């Protein structure tokens, strides 16, 4: 039991720390495109510590609960994801169906928390976030179905094992259209441009975060960090062959994250209903084509 | 139309109005206050599409407010200042918001800063000023410096620095 607790804590901390690190590096990376330097790569850690040192305002217990639930939802999902060679529960080995299910808990928790704050901007933001989720889940689920069929298993571990033996074996090469669809979905999951309608500062003043302050924003930050780690990790496991080495695994995640950051740097945001439409058109079509090719 | 023709036309229809030419692209028409809506609608009809601004001048020595309607025509490339004077004690004039919708906001603005009433224009909520209790600030007898010192205060400068 203690062992499992330790393993769980390890997973949680790794995800948060690596996530924050990725965020910092991502900021440096996008600054380069924008022709400036930006802060040090450890800036995100300082931000989080500062946020926790601030006074924070809570409107009611639902808000506290919702924010915690959002954070816990993401952390709980980490349990099911193989981090390189490491798994919290060695026998579960990352069931992708469970992961998809758990990931929504994070959003719902967030939705609950910020809706309780009563700010119309936050409400609009969370409504957009949930709608957008409907958008990117469809192509993502399609790619998942494809991989489940292809591997005859819903376990990420099995998918990783099946991709060993050179990058030609990677699902990204084998199923390029599905990989593309998954990348687009990842962009949506991370809420980067062009799919950041839910936080859009110039429209709804950063949406769900509008009423979060101090600790709550800190938890939001940590949640986002863990989310980056989790979602890039899933794609790495699904398409890029995972890894038996921590560092290679992290490097693959980072590469994936920087790719999304680069895209977010050069595209404006979609209107959210356009975004949903887009998700149901292009990536869904790609995933469907891949599925049809696979079936044939 | 040339400037000359426009002026002739105005003179034809409004014999009482005085026309003063500033340069080849700009002239002013001084009209009676009762004529103002008629002359403005006439101007609109002959091709002055744009109401550029409505402003007022406080001629405190004459005890008059002068209202200046600034029109522009894209067809004739002419700028016209249509002016009229009204009594300062009971400033009231017909609104022209039926001719140009933008007049509504300009009249609201002039009302706020000069206290001129525009009959026919109902939305006169304060737009710019916050909780204004004094006399309209653009009137010449309103002392802005005194007001500022009174309410916002100012530093006394030290004698020896």
């Amino acid at each position, binding site marked *: 039991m203690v062992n499992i607790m330790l393993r769980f804590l390890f997973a949680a901390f790794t995800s948060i720390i690596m996530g924050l690190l990725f965020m910092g590096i991502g900021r440096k990376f996008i600054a380069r495109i924008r022709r400036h330097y930006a802060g040090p790569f450890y800036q995100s850690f300082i931000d989080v510590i500062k946020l926790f040192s601030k006074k924070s305002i809570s409107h009611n217990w639902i808000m506290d609960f919702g924010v915690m639930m959002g954070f816990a939802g993401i952390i709980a999902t980490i349990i099911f994801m193989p981090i390189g060679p490491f798994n919290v529960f060695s026998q579960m080995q990352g069931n992708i169906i469970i992961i998809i299910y758990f990931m929504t808990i994070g959003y719902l928790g967030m939705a609950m928390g910020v809706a309780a704050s009563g700010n119309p901007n936050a409400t609009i933001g969370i409504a957009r976030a949930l709608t957008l989720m409907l958008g990117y889940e469809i192509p993502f689920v399609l790619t998942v179905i494809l991989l489940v069929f292809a591997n005859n298993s819903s376990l990420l571990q099995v998918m990783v094992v099946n991709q060993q033996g050179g990058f030609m074996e990677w699902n990204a090469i084998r199923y390029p259209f599905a990989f593309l669809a998954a990348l687009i979905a990842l962009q949506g999951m991370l809420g980067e441009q062009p799919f950041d309608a839910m936080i859009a500062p110039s429209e709804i003043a950063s949406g769900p975060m509008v009423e979060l302050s101090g600790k709550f924003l800190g938890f939001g930050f940590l949640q986002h960090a863990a989310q980056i780690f989790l979602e890039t990790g899933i794609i790495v496991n699904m398409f890029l062959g995972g890894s038996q080495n921590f560092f290679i695994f992290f490097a693959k995640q980072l590469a994936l994250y920087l790719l999304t950051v680069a895209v977010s740097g050069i595209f404006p945001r979609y209107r959210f209903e356009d975004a949903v439409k887009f998700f149901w058109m292009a990536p869904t079509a790609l995933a469907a084509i891949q599925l049809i090719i696979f079936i044939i | 139309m040339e400037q000359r023709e426009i002026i002739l036309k105005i003179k034809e229809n409004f014999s009482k109005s005085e026309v003063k030419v500033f340069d080849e692209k700009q002239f002013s028409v001084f009209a009676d206050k009762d004529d103002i809506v008629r002359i403005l609608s006439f101007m609109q009809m002959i091709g002055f599409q744009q109401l550029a601004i409505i402003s007022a001048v406080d001629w405190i020595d004459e005890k008059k407010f002068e209202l200046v309607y600034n029109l522009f025509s894209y067809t004739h490339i002419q700028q016209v200042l249509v002016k009229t004077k009204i009594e300062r004690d009971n400033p009231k004039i017909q609104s022209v918001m039926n001719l140009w919708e933008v007049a*509504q906001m300009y009249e609201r603005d002039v009302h706020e800063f000069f206290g001129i009433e525009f009959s026919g224009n109902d939305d006169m909520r304060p737009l710019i000023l916050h909780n204004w209790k004094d006399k309209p600030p653009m009137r010449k007898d309103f002392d802005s410096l005194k007001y500022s010192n009174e309410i916002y205060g100012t530093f006394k400068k030290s004698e020896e620095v």
Partner: protein
Amino acid sequence: MSEILTFMGMEDQYKKYELFFGPNHPGMHGNFSYIITVEGHTIKKIDPDAGLLHRGFEKLVEQRLWMQNISLIPRICVPEPDINEAIYSIAVEKLMGVEVPERAQYIRTIILEMARIGAFLFGFGGIGGATGLYTASYWTFADRDYLLDLFEWLTGARIYHMFILPGGVRRDIPNGWLEKLSETVDYLQKRLYEYDRLIYNNPLIVKRLENLGPVTQEDAMKYGITGPNIRATGIKYDTRKAVPYAAYDKIDFEVPVQTAGDGLARAVQKREEFQVSLDIIKKAIQQMPEGSVRAKMPNPLKFRVPKGDVYVKLETAHGEHAYYIVSNGSDKPYRMAVRGGSFTAGLVYAQKALVGMRIEDVALWMATMDICPPDFDR
């Protein structure tokens, strides 16, 4: 659990609600506010709440000497301050009947065009900021800084130059300035093509801007929408051509027009005018005559303008900026009314145009219409 249920049931309660768009809102350009009544995501009613930047310029100029006002008025329109000095100076010159030396006219032209380019860069950045393409804002604001460097060299200040005075300009051009200016113009020309690739050819931007708040020609004229925005509807009217001032009558340039009048047309129009401004500067550098830069003017402490009134309007990046100046022959202006370039667009036309639009488009609409709150708050 009741809280969650309330949230689920909020659809009813929030079916129609008021949203404060500004003043403290990242999408708001400047310090200004729209009180928006929203139904779902669609705007039902819009009520502008101006005055947050009100400083009472029209009163303040009446309290200062004619020359002192030069330092006050640039603040009326912050992104393009030089235009104010130019209007004021031209008005005073017209009232006094002063002839401005030709070299001063050319220097004025260059300054006005530089300010215009600066404002356009601000505008491009605004579109970037409103759509989430922050790279565009980072680039344009940084490139604008090179123009500010030149201003600083010429006039001694970055933003409020107070360089154009009645009678001419304050100083002659320093050595090496024109060369540096040509360099900067070439650099901006190069960068303009990169903006094209990043902004105007970006399919997502085009998608956002297309059919955004189209303006018809009749509306544009009637509502007093001016400048690039009226040219985007197809009316080929430019104050610089029609009523020339500074050296615009001596410099040959084309006035571009668009036809659609929607957000894309407005944005593209500004991009085209950016190009025109670069060309004008290049030509002005070539044609720059020698000579004095300031006509003999009276002592600033005893500066009187003959009795009279004049309305002067000049072309700016966000429309026609104009002053109506009345002098009663004393050493202070008797009355100065300011027509901000975006007064009608921001306060009146917005009430009509924004209704039926979605809240995410408000910031973008403001960016394309170049709503500039300081000039209508005064």
